[in-house]
């Protein structure tokens, strides 16, 4: 029977959904699921991971102003020496998760498989699935060497599947100082807040791309998002152009979203954008180029000028909204 360790990342006192998804995945594949978390005892209640059948959580403690990567990788590296080795280590594809996976990989000399969207067991080995070519092809891969394989899993790839299991045992672990690799210091953290639902969890995402033509036109995206109680998103092209902050980016390097409806305006549908949104329940795309790849994933594709469609759509929804509220 297999043992899997998962990385339990938390933010603002809450365990991230991706960590719960990892637990959900691990439970299908292993008889023992254990987690590694960090943060002070009062900061995060790791025992709640028991509801996802995690039996034990190793808590590295408060990292102070250290970056996560070096400290947590050092702790996991030490644990691998003092505990029975797990068959695999699952890490969420977050910024800090990737740092931990990369440092740990080098430390224990085991390669990493990244961009994992599914995991299965075949002939007693864990096999990962990776979406390539914009999600048109699935590649499956596995580790052939020794040592626990490190899989970096994209958010929203697995169901959390709460089982209501008993509270997990939380064990404090003390790891040696990683030395020079831990030299960087976090001086301040800046949260760019926005009104309305967050991009990660919104039921509706309204996203704009280069076809908007100018930064000013992004206001139309925000307005439409507001009218449908959704979150505004963006392609990388307009994030790179400085029209919107990076936290709006959907795709390979940005967020993975899985809303009920994804509306794309002036987004061509590059491979790296599609991997971040193709699993939306419904997709509507507006683009003036009939051959834009985004139309291949759209339930409703509108070939047309967004400068015409978007204002009319906003007007129609506004009219309905005002009508509804006077009812």
């Amino acid at each position, binding site marked *: 029977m297999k043992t899997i360790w998962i990385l339990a990342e938390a933010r603002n006192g809450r365990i991230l959904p991706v960590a719960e998804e990892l637990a959900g995945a691990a439970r299908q594949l292993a008889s023992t699921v254990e987690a590694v978390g960090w943060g002070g005892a009062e900061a995060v209640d790791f025992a709640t991971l028991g509801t996802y059948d995690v039996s034990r959580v190793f808590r590295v403690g408060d990292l102070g102003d250290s970056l996560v990567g070096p400290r947590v990788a050092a702790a996991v590296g030490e644990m691998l020496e003092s505990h029975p080795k797990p068959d695999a280590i699952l890490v969420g594809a977050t910024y800090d998760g990737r740092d931990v996976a990369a440092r740990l990989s080098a430390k224990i000399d085991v390669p990493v498989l990244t961009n994992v969207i599914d995991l299965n067991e075949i002939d007693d080995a864990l096999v990962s699935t990776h979406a390539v070519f914009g999600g048109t092809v699935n590649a499956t*891969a596995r580790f052939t060497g020794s040592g626990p394989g490190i899989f970096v899993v994209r958010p929203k790839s697995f169901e959390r599947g709460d089982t209501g299991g008993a509270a997990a045992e939380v064990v404090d672990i003390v790891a040696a100082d990683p030395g020079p*690799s831990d030299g960087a210091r976090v001086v301040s953290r800046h949260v760019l807040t926005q009104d309305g639902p967050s991009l990660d969890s919104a039921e509706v995402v309204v996203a704009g791309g280069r076809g908007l033509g100018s930064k000013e036109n992004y206001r139309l995206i925000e307005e439409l998002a507001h009218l449908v109680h959704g979150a505004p998103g963006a392609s*990388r092209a307009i994030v790179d152009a400085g029209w919107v902050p*990076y936290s709006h980016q959907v795709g390979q390097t940005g967020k993975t979203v899985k809303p009920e409806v994804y509306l794309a305006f002036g987004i061509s549908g590059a491979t790296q954008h599609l991997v971040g949104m193709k699993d939306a329940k419904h997709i509507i795309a507006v683009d003036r180029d009939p051959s834009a790849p985004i*139309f291949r994933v759209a339930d409703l*594709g509108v*070939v047309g*000028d967004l400068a015409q469609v978007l204002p009319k759509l906003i007007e129609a929804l506004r009219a309905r909204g005002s009508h509804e509220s006077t009812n």
Partner: protein
Amino acid sequence: MNVAVCVKQIPSAETPLAFDPTSKTLVRTGPLVLDESDSFSVEMALRLVEQSGGGDVTLISVVPDGETQGLRTALAMGAARAVLVSDPLLSGLDALGTAKVLAAMVRRLDADLVLAGTESSDGYTGTVPVQMAELLNYPAVSFVRHVEISGDHLVTERQTEEGFEEVTCPLPAVVSVTAGVVEVRYPSFKGIMAAKSKPVEVLTVADLGLEADSLGIAGARQEVIALEQAELRPSGEIITDSGDAFETIVERLVSWNIISEHQ
């Protein structure tokens, strides 16, 4: 300040991506070009060297087949020299193996700072820079959108899921730079001419004192088992706007219960 920049040379965007059916690894044939993801760190390196008032930029790259075209582009931008590890032994090298070769190259240089991209355009594992930092026992700041030198350390802005954090970092260090964060200069005609005579040192794995075994090539440690067509979404309805497409969108939003039915 001396800066080393990791640059990957990849098939140009015109070359369709394909997998070799037997090895199931990405086919890398045809000319290789500078990965756009790395042009941002080249630009940032040139600016940091200018800002520090001395030193220069050395490019480091790993390829199986001796390709230098991508390096010439970065040399034309203003890098002083390039070091290339080229060895047929390196085909099929994984990210950790690449990081080992790059770390060995950094050890031979006198670099205060190593810059890299956050993700390559063709492999996008996004792990090479931090793996390299761990092998060198250096601090690393990943996903960086801004870097400044302040005395003997760096002041950086690192992107996070919800915004950014300010991170200071002593040198030597590895910094991975996010795409799009600086405007990349076009090589000037003079730069292109000068690049032709800039030194490109070509090394083998053995020159670095590494053994193929230690890189995980002899008996790769991970393998692609199968490639399958993914389940495609059923094709949807495509309409051409003639002034009233917005109404169809509203209808769909109603039928999916996103907005209520009554007007």
